[in-house]
């Protein structure tokens, strides 16, 4: 191998290492400064490294070429999913919010990733709170939708000139006091509905942890009795913990108590 070839190989390795260490996409000019080589010289090496998938070109931003060690498409998807996980939004808003997470990308371009993720069923469209529009949530995750619902109700109460805090406090009290009996009776149905909401693929188990978080209106006893009742009716499968003797009481409390020494970690619709 000639000395020229060795130095080029060395340069490429330095370039790739510099890009991998970068916390954000970097411009070719910045990279040239980092590896202390003129911009023109590194362009050939960048081309080879990109062909070799050692680094990836990103879309131009303010007339500068950007590159990074992660493909732009992947980061874009990640940004959309992260935004949808925080709050359910319309396609346009999701495009806008997720675009803020990635430098140099328009909201319009991000909307195409919302479409792709919806086609892949990683995002799910749900009816919005008014009109015919749709909001996007991560498939199987309800938190983003609940946050959006909270914002919506809060806004409407404020518009009417009332204090939203009073409303939410009253809701909590009423849940704890008057609705308990009704919830206990409806518990099996509530559990089935919750599983269907949290897990769009039929038959896939939902952890008791997620279900309990989702169904805070049910106390542990009602929840456990209802789950066992559903199994008796052969409407669900319960996933049994293989070694309950080896876990703490705190961990056991999150599971379903089978009343015979068995504990269950998840529920799936049959």
């Amino acid at each position: 191998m000639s000395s020229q070839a060795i130095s080029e190989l060395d340069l490429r390795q330095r370039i790739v290492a510099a890009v991998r260490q970068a916390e954000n996409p970097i411009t070719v000019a910045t990279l040239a400064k980092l590896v202390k080589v003129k911009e023109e010289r590194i362009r050939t090496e960048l081309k080879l490294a990109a062909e070799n998938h050692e680094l990836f070109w990103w879309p131009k931003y303010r007339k500068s070429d950007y590159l990074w060690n992660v493909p732009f498409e992947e980061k874009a998807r990640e940004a959309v999913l992260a935004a949808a996980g925080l709050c359910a939004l319309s396609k346009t808003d999701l495009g806008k919010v997720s675009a803020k997470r990635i430098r140099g990308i328009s909201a319009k371009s991000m909307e195409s990733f919302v479409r792709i993720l919806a086609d892949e069923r990683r995002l799910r469209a749900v009816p919005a709170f008014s009109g015919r529009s749709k909001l996007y949530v991560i498939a199987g995750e309800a938190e983003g939708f609940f946050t959006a619902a909270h914002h919506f109700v809060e806004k409407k109460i404020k518009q009417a000139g009332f204090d939203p805090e009073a409303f939410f406090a009253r809701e909590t009290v009423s849940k704890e006091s008057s609705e308990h009996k009704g919830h206990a009776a409806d518990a099996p149905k509530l559990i089935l509905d919750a599983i269907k909401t949290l897990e769009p693929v039929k038959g896939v188990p939902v952890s008791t942890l997620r279900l309990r978080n989702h169904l805070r209106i049910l106390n542990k006893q009602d929840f456990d009795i209802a789950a066992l009742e559903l199994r008796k009716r052969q409407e669900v499968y319960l996933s049994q913990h293989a070694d309950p003797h080896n876990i703490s009481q705190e961990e056991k409390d999150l599971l379903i108590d089978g009343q015979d020494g068995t504990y269950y970690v998840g529920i799936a619709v049959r």
Partner: protein
Amino acid sequence: MARMGHIMSVLPFGNPFGPLVGQPLADAQVDLTDINASAFAACQQLVNDVAMDGYSASLTVFGDSGTGKTHLIGRVRKWMETQPQNLFVFVRMETSPAGIWRHLRRYVASSLLRKSSDGIRPLDMLLGQRKNELDLFADRDLSIALEHLLEGRHVRDAAAWLRGEGLPEDVLKSLFLSTPGTDDDLEVISRHIVLSICQLVRPGVVVFCLDQIEAVMSSSSDRDGPHAFAKAVSCLVEETRSAGVICCEQSVFMNTMEQILDNAAKSKVMGRRAAIHPLTWEQAKRLIAARLDTVPELAAERKRHDSGWPLTEKHFQERFPGDAAPARSVIALCKDLFDEWRLGAPPVIVSLDEALKTMMEERFAKQEPADTDAILRNGVPLLARSAGIDLKVSQKPSPLDFTARDGSVAIGICNEVNLTSLASHLKKITQSWTATTGSSVILLRDSRLPIRRSATVTQQRLTDIQANGGRLVTVSQEALEALAALRHLLSDAESGDLAHNYQSVTPKQVEQWIAGHLPAALDQLVSEFGDSAANPAKLTHAIADLLAQRKMVRLEDAARDLAVTIAEVDEAVRRDPHQFGLLGGSVPILFQPVTPSKATPTT
């Protein structure tokens, strides 16, 4: 139960209900494709999506123990045989968090090199036509190793390199491969190799089927293992465009993963989900009939009876509370019932103790020096736990692998075949060790890897370490094989793959059994981890204190109470026969002898 004595005496046919754990790489498994069809469809969808879209993705298949997750992987493998453009990689995740990429590299290499029934290696199918492109895609060493393998040159050594095994310097030179650098991190290199191979296989898909994921946990409360596993899967999904990762997990693992992963990691690792369910009674009947149909000697007689013959339905129907039972428990029961019919006597019920002994023996296998690193990294924590020693995995970039007894003992695995690499490792250990005062160092090395006298630098560094109180402990092949078998046994328990009397054997039960049945070779090894060798007087005092309180105690209990090994107590007691007495036999008893001067005179 109906029985055909004449068949039994004339035809010694086998039992169609064994083995009880899925064998994904075996061709002869009975498979009813309509059972758990949706989970299989999800696996197919994943592979097709990765191939079509050019993005890697993962699928998590949940299921209770014994429901057929490993069996499903076998179905995926058979399907993959019809797709020579894709690579099937089956991985049992029996590894430590610090060695996941080395483990994956080993399995990827083995999958590339494993010949099919036609005698063709996937390597030739996938890369044979692309020899000229290797330079463009792979790094220098990888492309050279692949070239050797494709050209049929230095096959044994090139294959060993691809699997990540250390090679002596002269062999590396003859292969034109570079010598590992002093700062090279084997995990980072292995990750790079795995990702590069995924890149090379494009546009084909590398289908990783990761089984027994629970085995990556060092204990039931371990969070590092699941976290490292999720990080590795995220990396495969993020940094490649051709990986389809199928993760088979026990449902019990679901809560753990949901608690430790953030949203982004969850969406990468558990974004797609499928499930394996227990068998319904109707499915079980068909499966039993299909298994029985594989015994040709029974075919004629079976035509004259119902589909379950020679088994009787009523014997196992009661095992279906709520019309659902795990496949393995059904098959295990049928296996016993079939043996009862075949042999004319009910199967002998053995104790859990005996059953675990047999299971352990079944897991004994010959281990090569190339396996030693992984065996020690995965097995030493288990060994320490069984001896009641608190062991911690050292954090990178420490050259030492573990610390024990509150940091007073540091343990390093020094198994390099390449002596230059070993010398460099020893140098780092010396630097790191001298920085930590008050601790002793134990270096573990396979006894089959001697260090040449001519390796002067390595010898000198070893001498320096020993002069400062460090110890080089050579581990025998016997100890390594026992350790690998124990780890395998525990991994199977962690994954719900061990059963006794139709019940799962828990990891806790296995660990308790190991503590009381440590093979002699391992007992000797674990005694090296203690500080009693350096402080024999301390142990003697501790034994004397114990006997002052209890007068008589089982040797095993004394070792447990003093948090040392049986061998250590035994050695200390024998060293001082005037102070301690020891009664041999199957349960050795330690006692405080009464000296003649103090004995009550008899009249």
